[in-house]
Structures are given as C-alpha cells and as structure tokens.
C-alpha cells in the first residue's frame, strides 16, 4: 500500500509517500532509528501488518520535515531512511512537493 502523509493547503502540497508493502517482510526496521528527526514509528495497520508510518505529531508539519529530507537527498543522494532500507533502497519513501 502507498500511504501518503501530509497535506494540501494555501501554501502548497506537502506529501511523504511510504510504500508499506516493503515493510511487511522487513525484520530490521532500520528506518525508524536512522531518521534524525524521529519521523517514523512502526504501527499495526488495518490489515494487521506491521508497517512504518509517519508519527501523528509530524503529519501536519510535513512542509518543515520535507526540508530536512530534501537536504538529505541533496547531500547523499537519498534520505537516511531510504539508504538503510534493506528491502528496497530509495523507493521505500518518496518525497513530493
């Protein structure tokens, strides 16, 4: 499942997309520890799968959080969470603005 977290308001559209299908078989959950701003948590979704999600307190602040994610992309080619994802490098999370 593609889970889009974020919002659309007068200042623009700020969404972070997580491909949670990649989380189902994942044992490491490295993305949670790797994120320098503590964006992620592991939740049990509606279909009883353990998947990564953006924490509730960050969901309406994605405009600010996107800046740090984009800074990570610029400096190392991908955000830290994506670079440590063992299931699929880079495609675990997509930032759109």
């Amino acid at each position: 499942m593609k889970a889009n977290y974020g919002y659309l308001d007068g200042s623009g559209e700020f969404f972070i997309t997580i491909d949670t299908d990649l989380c189902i078989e994942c044992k490491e959950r490295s993305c949670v520890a790797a994120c320098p701003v503590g964006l992620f948590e592991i939740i049990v979704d509606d279909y009883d799968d353990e998947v990564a999600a953006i924490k509730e307190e960050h969901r309406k602040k994605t405009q600010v959080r996107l800046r740090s994610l984009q800074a990570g992309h610029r400096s190392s080619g991908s955000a830290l969470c994506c670079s440590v994802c063992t299931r699929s490098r880079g495609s675990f999370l997509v930032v759109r603005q």
Partner: protein
Amino acid sequence: MTETTQEFWRWKESNWHDESIDPKAAETVSAGVDVGSVSSQAVVMADGKLYAYASMRTGSDSPDSARNAMNWALENTGLNLEDIHYTVGTGYGRVNVPFADRTITEIACHARGGNMMYGPSVRTILDMGGQDCKAIHCDEKGKVTNFLMNDKCAAGTGRGMEVFADLLAVSVEDVGELSLDVDEEPPPVSSTCVVFAKSEASSLLREGWSKKRVLAAYCSAMAHRVVSLLERIGVEKDFAITGGIAKNAGVVTRLEKELKLESLKSNYDTQIAGALGAALFARALVEKQRKKVAR
C-alpha cells in the same frame, strides 16, 4: 420585535431498517459506527446484508454521538446492543465508541464500504467528509492500495459547503441544484481557503452577482480543489464518490467534467459508506474468531 434564525447548514438526518429481514434468524449480526467530525452513522448488518442504519449530526461528545446513532439505527427493530456480535468503530472519533470491539481507520472502511456499494470494479474512491477529504485507491476486494487524506484545511470539505449555505441563506441540500441553474459557468472563487472564499463571495454579492452564480463559483472551486488531490494518487476507472458531498450535484457534475470521467451511482446513502465498511470488517472479524475457537 421577533427574530427568526434558520439553520441553512442543517441537512436531513435519517434512519432506516429493512422489514423483510429477520435479524434474530441471522448467524452473525455485525455493526459499524462511524463517528465523523460533522456526522455520525451506525450500520447494522445481518449475515452481511444491510439491515438498518442511522445517520445524524455529531454532537459535542463522541461517545454520546456513537450511542445516539446506534440507538436510532436499532429503533423499532426489536434488537438491542447485546444482540450485536461484533462492532467496529471508525472515523475521527473511533477511539471514543464505548461499545466497539475494535477500531479501524475510515480509509480502510470507506474502501470496503465503497466496494459493497458500487461493486468490485470500483478502483478510485473519493470521500468528501465533513472536515476532511480522502482519495483512496483500492483493489477488487476493497483493500486499500494507495491513499491520501487532507485534513489540515476546510477547503474541499462538507463544512466549507455548510459555511457557504449559511452565508447565502440557502439550504445546504439545495446548493448543488441551484449552482447548476446558471447560464454561463463563472470563474471559481479561491480554492485554497474557506475563509478567503467566503470573503470573496461577499464581495461578489456586493458587485451584483446572483446567489446561484456565487454558488456555482464555489462548487467549481471545490471540485477543482479535490481534483488536485485525486491526481496525486491517480484516478483509475471505476470511480465513485462517498460522503455527504456526493449528494451535491453541483460539485459532482463539475468534478466529473474536470476529470472527464463519470462517477458510479448507488442506491445506498453515500454517507453510510464508512460505517458500512466497518460493519463488513466486523463480520469478517467475528467469523475469524469463531474459526479460531473451532480449531
């Protein structure tokens, strides 16, 4: 001097039950309660068939709203809460449904409910709720494959429409049809903020625009707003709309025009989609429990 105040935003609350079904003969009686920010619905199913529902305005207390909706759905059915085998709570106030056995997000429930209401061919569901808007992509079983929710801003929501109904002193249930009764489609008002749109509409009225023309401009803005959300997840046929705004022909017609796609129609009340999905989840969960016990 007497002053009369009319609540133009108030929509019709309703309850219904199918007299041809005997729920006491059913193996499984499941229920779903959707406590939204503006409206609450309760749905009761007998062996997977829609038996009863109620749709009413959410009050200031979520547990009371859940109880009131369920009591109204059960009114004159001969059933009471103890006869229901499993209840799923959903919606904004789902954690405050005191008699729920489990909670499930409204995103998953709308997909499941939409699948029953519109059939397994539905792939894209737009839920235009009271204070949020959800674009959902699902598979043939009604399982969510992609979703996006916008709940930071009232633009593109039912509450925005209620604000306009009050401003123009037009019943919210008549807004859609009136907005279509214009000779020429006016340019949309601001689609980014209800407060801006409201002040823009006041200026247009002062300039001499008719109420119908202002309503057309607002319905057009709302349609434009949700199209940009839908485009984020990609619109795939078949496409359906749930929630209260699905009853507003002015928004639906303009949305279909912008998407160049006709939405599916259903005989079900579009506002019960979330509660219906919750009741379907409840049935599946109680049957899973029974299988576990039988093993």
